[in-house]
């Protein structure tokens, strides 16, 4: 693909800005470190041994490429466009998060760092980070909001089994953003030996670019698989968005294909008309948090407000800066799906396809269900099934009024 001046694929600029968004809004203590990280990332990009090590681990450890699957019964049930899924829920650890963790831990080792930290919300990124740390024998500390620790016990136990130390964070609302604050506090105090594996395409430059690049394996595979299976590109890509890494991973390789439309799906929680949602793009305003400028859920004074979503993985008041830019450029359309709609879509996929999806991609599936009905039968939708739902069965049972 050519990278011409008008490309949507040549962001960010050399200062890490995606248009007006992104950047490096961090304390001075961290600046030299993220500049080092950027230099090391550029070297790794130019080093074929880094790429072959990354590819090898993705193939033999993660299980890539993930399948491209035509959801025949779901398509029939919806009665419109053909629905295809990129099956990233079949990855080792059950979600797309591992793709990024492999890339970042390889970089950490190149930089001679000997200790890994990460934040986690639902626990998926924490599990993926603990997994790669066990694989490479590095000590690992995971910061997790105390509220999330209580509601995601199975993932907490998984991380501990993998040898990670899980630190419950009690500040603020004790959820994902507070875990990220605590991760940053650890990092400034341990810059000499510690690498912070950020879980989504957000944070200070070069994280948004780097995480996107590592996750782009999703879209690169999907593009080639589509061409080889049906000899055409999809009409519409759909993915759920919390921080936005699985969506960017799918979208980015298609951004310069003008006939491919894209739909990012935020969490509308109880509805966008109140404040109990996690839709930063549709219900927020630009601001600065956690190292980057982006859309944030915030009040008139710039205080960050607490989002809500049934999905702990979407429950973050910000969003990756590249999405903020893609929204303003109108290259990607953004919509939002409520808790109840996601719950319906969750059950729909279980029953039509025999796949239990995570609550995060259930938001994407709900949006697919709405769109597919409005599109002709020869059109093609490709959605990212970015995680499996085993972790969510307790939440879903509770919502459905079932005791297990």
């Amino acid at each position, binding site marked *: 693909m050519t990278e011409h001046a008008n490309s949507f694929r040549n962001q960010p600029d050399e200062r890490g800005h995606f248009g007006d968004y992104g950047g490096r809004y*961090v*304390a001075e203590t961290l*600046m030299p470190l993220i*500049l080092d990280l950027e230099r090391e990332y550029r070297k790794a990009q130019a080093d074929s041994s880094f790429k072959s090590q990354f590819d090898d681990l993705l193939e033999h450890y993660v299980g890539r490429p993930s399948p491209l699957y035509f959801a025949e019964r779901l398509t029939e049930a919806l009665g419109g466009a053909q629905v295809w899924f990129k099956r990233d829920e079949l990855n080792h650890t059950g979600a797309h998060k591992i793709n990024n963790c492999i890339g970042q831990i390889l970089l950490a080792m190149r930089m001679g760092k000997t200790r890994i930290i990460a934040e986690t919300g639902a626990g998926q990124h924490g599990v993926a980070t603990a997994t790669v740390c066990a694989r490479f024998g590095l000590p690992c500390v995971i910061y997790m909001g105390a509220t999330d620790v209580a509601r995601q016990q199975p993932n907490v136990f998984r991380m501990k089994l993998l040898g990670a130390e899980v630190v419950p964070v009690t500040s603020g609302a004790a959820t994902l953003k507070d875990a990220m604050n605590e991760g940053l506090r650890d990092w400034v105090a341990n810059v000499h030996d510690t690498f912070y594996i950020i879980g989504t395409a957000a944070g200070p430059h070069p994280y948004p670019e780097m995480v996107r690049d590592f996750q782009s394996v999703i879209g690169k595979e999907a593009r080639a698989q589509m061409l080889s299976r049906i000899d055409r590109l999809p009409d519409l890509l759909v993915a759920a968005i919390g921080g936005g890494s699985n969506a960017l991973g799918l979208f980015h390789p298609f951004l310069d294909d003008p006939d491919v439309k894209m739909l990012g799906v935020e969490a509308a929680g109880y509805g966008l008309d109140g404040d109990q949602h996690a839709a930063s793009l549709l219900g927020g305003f630009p601001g*600065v948090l956690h190292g980057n400028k982006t859309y944030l859920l*915030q009040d008139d*004074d*710039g*205080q*960050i407000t607490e989002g809500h979503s049934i999905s702990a993985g979407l429950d973050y008041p910000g969003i990756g800066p590249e999405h903020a830019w893609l929204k303003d450029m109108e290259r990607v359309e953004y919509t939002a799906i409520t808790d109840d709609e996601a719950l319906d879509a969750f059950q729909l996929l279980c029953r039509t396809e025999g796949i239990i999806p995570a609550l995060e991609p259930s938001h994407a599936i709900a949006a697919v269900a709405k769109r597919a009905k409005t599109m002709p039968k020869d059109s093609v939708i490709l959605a990212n099934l970015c995680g499996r739902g085993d972790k969510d069965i307790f939440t879903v049972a509770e919502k459905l009024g079932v005791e297990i």
Partner: protein
Amino acid sequence: MNEPDTMNASNRLSAAFAKPNPALVCFLTAGDGDTGANLDALVDGGADVIELGMPFTDPMADGPAIQAANIRSLGKGTTTADVLSIASGFRQRHPDVPLVLMGYANPMVRRGPEWFASAAMNAGVDGVICVDIPPEEDDALGPSLRDAGIAPIRLATPTTDDRRLPAVVEGSEGFLYYVAVAGITGMQQAAIESIEANVARIKQATDIPVAVGFGVRTPEQAGEIARVADGVVVGSALVELVAEHGADAPAHLRELTSKLAGAVRSAR
């Protein structure tokens, strides 16, 4: 401006650092307790510069004491307008004492950097320390502050290497804040040898005064640092007194500030 403005912003800060003794810089979080009375107690006790913290929901560079102060303040409903009103009240009562706002970018840029700079200027603020705007992102706030005659005060840290130091000191006005430890506020103290070496390194790169903070809690520590720096910043130890004593905090703040001021002034 209608306040009794006997000095302008840059004059107040430079006068504070032009005194023969090192300056004592005292921090409190705005809206945590009776901030007006507490700030007056700091001035009574001998503070040379007041640093007023703007509360934020996500104070990433702060340790437990100042985090808790932010939560207490926001829990009582403190707004940006309240912070500015505390500042202008202080300016009315203390026409000559320099006042610096310290905080995080988002509340400062929410209504646009020009709005914030102009509101801060009207409140009689002399300088602004923004934790998460490094020189690389100066455009987000720096030009607006300079246009309004407010000093953007930069932070240098133990990780600020010689390659970065020129960029850090170049846009800084009023004073440079040397963060003595790579870490968060109110925790461990750095070794005096490290502080001395780093202050000397910074002073080779700039003529503006260097104040040292993070982890400075006692008069002894303050006195030790005052021997090698132009100013000493104390925050968490004062904020803890507000937490502990509530309405009775002024007497305790006055007492600690006066011990700190004594130690700083007799250092050299």
